[in-house]
């Protein structure tokens, strides 16, 4: 009896916790509402199975409790039951998989009108590069990275001259415009994630990865690193500001292009911040930066 009640309590408690828990996903701020819908669908299908299994067990434990004189039913197989269960499970699984694959197809199909933005990661800071007026990002190479060229943009590439460099500052994005987010890391794996966007992808040194997103809600959102990247992983933060076209244009006009930065470097005017090492990080560092830096030293 106690065991049956215990199992019942687990089933009821789980349902109650699910509906009353104050911890749930953040209000969405992108076009990926389909992902949330797929999760809800999965919740219903799997939730029903979980509750059914636990309640069935509770019933059996209560109903078929041991009696010395009793004998269990001897019926090793029941093909009808087994095939029905196989069929129903297959239907349930397909019911989750097929919508999921449709949404995945959307996720990996970048719309033609998406503008490119490069997210540039290194231990433990975020920087950004926008394509400038020509709409094209210049080629880049880690071997070209130095104090004067922190992004490693190829100075011989005409496309790169007007690239806008956001060095350790927040990223701004215009509202309701699809963006192809190109992801680049120069040291280890990182992962660019804004929880309100629902979309993420790892950044892999030696390759450029991507995802696309259309911000649908104005506001300022946290950027977090979602792939373990060393002792400063938890402190690798930035913010994304989603705003109207007008506000975005104003902000964009104030940013530095690669050409300007290169000229400034030539004139020995240091940039406001360099992205080298642990300098130039205007992140929301939680513990004093020096702690991480000191640890870095001791780790080395």
């Amino acid at each position, binding site marked *: 009896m106690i065991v049956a009640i215990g199992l019942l309590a687990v089933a009821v408690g789980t349902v109650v916790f699910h509906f009353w828990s104050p911890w*749930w996903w*953040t209000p969405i701020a992108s076009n990926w509402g389909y992902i949330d819908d797929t999760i809800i669908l999965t919740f219903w299908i799997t939730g029903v199975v979980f509750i059914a299994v636990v309640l069935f067990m509770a019933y059996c434990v209560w109903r078929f409790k041991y009696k010395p004189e009793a004998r269990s*039913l001897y019926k090793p197989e029941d093909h009808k039951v087994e095939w029905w269960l196989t069929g129903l499970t297959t239907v349930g699984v397909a019911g989750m998989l097929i919508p999921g694959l449709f949404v*995945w197809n959307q996720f990996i199909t970048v719309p033609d009108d998406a503008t490119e933005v490069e997210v540039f990661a290194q231990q433990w800071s975020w920087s950004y590069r926008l394509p400038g007026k020509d709409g094209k990002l210049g080629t880049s190479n880690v071997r070209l*990275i130095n104090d004067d060229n922190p992004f490693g943009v190829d100075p011989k590439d005409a496309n790169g001259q007007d690239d806008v460099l956001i060095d350790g500052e927040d990223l701004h994005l215009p509202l309701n415009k699809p963006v192809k987010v190109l992801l680049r890391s*120069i040291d280890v794996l990182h992962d660019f994630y804004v929880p309100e966007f629902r979309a*993420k992808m790892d950044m892999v040194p030696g390759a450029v990865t991507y995802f696309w997103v259309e911000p649908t809600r104005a506001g300022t959102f946290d950027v977090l690193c979602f*792939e373990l990247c060393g002792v400063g992983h938890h402190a690798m933060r930035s913010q994304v500001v989603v705003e109207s076209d007008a506000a975005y244009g104003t902000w964009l006009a104030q940013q530095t292009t690669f050409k300007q930065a290169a000229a400034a470097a030539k004139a020995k005017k240091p940039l406001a911040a360099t992205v080298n090492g642990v300098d130039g990080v205007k992140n929301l560092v939680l513990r004093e930066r020096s702690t991480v830096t000191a640890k870095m030293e001791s780790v080395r």
Partner: protein
Amino acid sequence: MADVGADIGYVPPAEVEEMELYHAHSFITKYVFSQDAKVIAIQYSLTAIAIGLVGLVLSWMMRLQLGFPESFDFIDPADYYQFITMHGMIMVVYLLTALFLGGFGNYLIPLMVGARDMVFPYVNMLSYWIFLVAVLVLVSSFFVEGGPTGAGWTLYPPQAILSGTPGSGGGIVLMLISLSLFIIGFTMGGLNYVTTVLQARTRGLTLMRMPLTIWGIFTATVLALLAFPALLVGSIMMTLDSLLGTSFFMPSIVNQGELLNHDGGSPILFQHLFWFFGHPEVYIVALPAFGIVSDLLSVHARRHIFGYRMMVWAIVIIGALSFIVWAHHMYVSGMNPYFGFFFATTTLIIAVPTALKVYNWTLTLWKANIQLTVPMLFALAFIVTFVNGGITGLFLGNVVVDVPLSDTMFVVAHFHMVMGVAPLLVIFGAIYHWYPLMTGRMWHKGMALFHFWVTFVGAYTIFLPIHYLGFLGVPRRYFEMGETTFIPESAQTLNAFITVVVLFVGFAQIVFFYNMIRSMTKGEKAGHNPWKATSLEWQTPEVPPGHGNFGPDLPLVYRWAYDFGVPGVKDDFVPQNIHPDKVVKA
């Protein structure tokens, strides 16, 4: 010609009785360098549990940090990442794999298939000693400069061997060496388990009469023999990258402002190798648990397992499918996104045979005669936690749903429920079930019940809410959350609550250990076959079974292992080795 051998009397005669072959002749060969699978099993188990306790303490340390950030000066970020890394690797490989296969595999395979021992006892002995060295190498990494690796248990390069990660010098190399040793040692044991099951079954024990415990351990061992080599080559390649400066996994990198002398390597290649091992590894842990729990349910519910043949084929199919789902761990790794379609499909297909196993376990309870013994309680709790952890796998396996959830606490909650809590509940159930056989004594029931309820309810209370932190967007592997715009204060309160429960459940395990140690001398005599089980390990002439297991004559098998409640029979069970003429009619 009869006295030709007279002058070499120190050589034992060629013809001895069969049992004499299995005698150990000294204390050292009996208890230390033993070739008896049962002793090796105990050695494997105790070593695995000892290192598992280290893993448990590491989890307390990380929970202290998560529950009460900025309260403990002795935990800095590097320590924290080292705790999570070592906790993960210890629990998955050195505790669960070693305990299920090295521990339960060694103890149960020869006994349950009616063999006198493993077919290669000497190699079996070496397997344990190499495992012990692997554990010692792993432990030594705590004491080298820089400490153990803090790269996460997945050891992803380039991070694992670069200076921004704790233990990127000696720590990671010792980890890779330890893993390599583990794999070498495991291969020696694993070939034994497979060959013994295939070659040394007693007469009458066809494959389709084998207890599901053996099917689970056997299939898991086959998986391990095929999967571990991928980790071995990955480990060797990363060791070379680290020590010799090769570039298997290392592209051009600017590390802390300095251009490294690597070029052209692929970090994602390592992930493929790791998960080609890592996903079957989940089933290496799960399949023995599936098998064992089937037998616990059947014996204590006094009913045959429902759908035995389907259960066998489900184990085999799950094992085979587990080799073509690995990249579902890599949906957001940056691999070719079109792989997502394939791996999501295979991953969700594997849910079908897995779900059927769950149905058959619960249908075994239908019209059964259920004895709510402690092993039975653990088996029931396994089903609850396994189903819970399994369905969250359907979230993560469905590629697009994984996108927001990957690397959140949802993943942590999922894999702890499905391959932490669920298999551990089976391990506890199995220990309570076979303890009377291993020691000849019964444990204290009150303490065992206390241990069950605290462990089951506690573990469920710990991991259920963690899923919801994941939905919220709380990342895994974070030393502390600090300031965010989206995480409410209540999440920190929840973390503190979870930490308190973790510490309580952790310390409550003392009751289990006390019960086990105390009952070895003070427990009631268990007697012969106290659970009235049908399988061969309970039919030995001695309890605990002696060397050679079965006395002068090996048992003959006449039926499957699940003849409970056979109509027209007096007792509610018929052991596998009872001759049909000797079965007492009702």
